[in-house]
């Protein structure tokens, strides 16, 4: 079933009776060539690219809940490639390029909306740092523009430019950045994977690995044993728990990140705006709700809900940046579990166990990475070789001393 404008009109005229489920709901086979653990954005994208681009094979995605029940459906949907370090920026720019062709690629409306991201500058030091970051972005083929105060005012006149402590002095804008519909991304990849023959198996929790002579043979699941040629783990906030079943300890701590949505308002916020002096960022969804958030709560958590102090902190940041937000009523707040790595950068690599591969450590920034992460992980699974854009995102970089510490915070996950 292909989606098209014609199809939508035809269905509208015939009572929407012709739509079909987007994917099958198969029972697991006894064995697959590739088993992907985790049916979030990264797992589904991996299966999609594996089936479509790299190898025709028997592939399954095992998801303990329903597809998209994890962070892919909980994030604030920002996509951008505005990183500084050479270990990061080419990867995120690769992802940005994949976003730009994504809807044509998998024939699904993921509502990719390149409305731009504006990082505000409040001090001279910050301007220097952003100029440096903008130059790094340009060198990696991304777009970046440094704005002065008047140009920012033109874009977002409602900001508090003369806040006594944190006046706005300019901004770094990436116009190709923006937002995408998080669920739509999961559904698009799921449907695309299914069309290429991938078995998407829901309510199937991986409970153990069968490992013999240092090689993985398959996985134990709540729906029985499933044999596997290769296993790729992409379980985001459950990475430590799942990899512990393979006898590994990871350079990861789990933390909770909260997000907030206001009642629907008329179009107001031009793109994504980040406060450079506090921890606050905001965008507006297509339905009109202001989508905003701030810092992680800061303590280890698997609770998928946060506490009030951070809500207060985010509200304070919002009020400092755009006082009119105080008029908007909060509709919903929720939390998701972040796999915070020790340097704030993800891991896409093989593991010491033969045939077992790991995709983890996405912190609060893995949504934007979904296409490239899936692509690179599929490349690694299919070829055994690291994709060029992820060649620094190695599991052993910590012991080798090659951390990719974008924030320069050291091995303190709650500060990344």
């Amino acid at each position, binding site marked *: 079933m292909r989606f098209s404008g014609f199809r939508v009109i035809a269905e509208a005229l015939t009572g929407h009776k012709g739509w079909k489920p987007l994917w099958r709901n198969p029972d697991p086979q006894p064995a697959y060539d590739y088993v992907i653990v985790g049916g979030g954005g990264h797992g589904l994208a991996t299966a999609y690219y594996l089936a479509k681009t790299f190898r025709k094979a028997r592939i399954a995605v095992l998801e303990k809940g329903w597809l998209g029940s994890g962070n892919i459906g909980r994030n604030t949907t920002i996509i951008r490639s505005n990183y500084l370090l050479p270990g990061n920026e080419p990867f995120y720019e690769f992802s940005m390029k994949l976003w730009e062709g994504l809807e044509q690629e998998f024939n699904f409306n993921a509502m990719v909306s390149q409305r731009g991201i504006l990082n505000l500058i409040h001090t001279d030091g910050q301007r220097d740092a952003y100029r440096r970051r903008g130059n790094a972005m340009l060198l990696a083929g991304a777009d970046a523009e440094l704005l002065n105060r008047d140009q920012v005012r033109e874009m977002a006149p409602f900001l508090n430019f003369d806040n006594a402590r944190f006046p706005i002095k300019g901004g770094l804008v990436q116009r190709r950045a923006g937002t995408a519909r998080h669920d739509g991304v999961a559904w698009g990849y799921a449907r695309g994977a299914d069309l290429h023959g991938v078995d998407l198996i829901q309510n199937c929790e991986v409970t153990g690995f069968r490992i013999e002579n240092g090689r993985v043979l398959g996985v134990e699941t709540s729906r029985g044993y499933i044999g596997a040629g290769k296993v790729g783990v992409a379980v985001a906030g459950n990475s*430590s728990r799942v990899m512990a079943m393979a006898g590994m300890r990871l350079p990861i701590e789990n933390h909770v990140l909260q997000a907030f949505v206001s009642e629907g308002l008329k179009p107001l916020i031009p793109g994504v705006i980040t406060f450079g002096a506090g921890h606050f960022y905001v965008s507006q969804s297509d339905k009109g709700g202001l989508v905003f958030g701030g810092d992680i709560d*800061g303590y280890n958590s698997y609770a998928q809900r946060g506490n009030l102090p951070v809500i207060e902190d985010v509200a304070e940041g919002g009020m400092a940046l755009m006082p009119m937000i105080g008029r908007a009523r909060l509709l919903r707040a929720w939390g998701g579990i972040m796999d915070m790595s020790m340097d704030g950068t993800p891991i896409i690599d093989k593991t010491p166990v033969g045939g077992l591969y790991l995709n983890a450590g996405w912190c609060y920034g893995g949504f934007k990475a979904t296409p490239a992460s899936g692509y690179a992980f599929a490349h690694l699974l299919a070829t055994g070789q690291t994709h060029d854009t992820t060649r620094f995102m190695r599991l052993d970089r910590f012991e080798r001393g090659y951390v990719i510490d974008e924030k320069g915070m050291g091995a303190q996950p709650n500060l990344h």
Partner: protein
Amino acid sequence: MLIPHPLLGPRDAQEFTYLGDASLLNRPDGMAEGALAAFCDYVYLRDNPAGVHRELWFHEQGDRSWLVVTRNTVTHEILGAELARDVALRRQK
């Protein structure tokens, strides 16, 4: 969250800053055999359990004590707190 400070009674968790797993008290001996690998583990690897977790909190906006707090990471329930100093001294014995 309220942290039951052993000296001061229940105090708002907001007064504290968080460091992480209490195993950070067990700093390896830098001169011992295999110190490099031991430090790599110490600095970068974590058990990161879902459930009961012993962790270091610093009472920054308070009496500046380090506490070892026992907390459930799934429910956020706090099960106890002691002075990290007491924990460390007990270990030395």
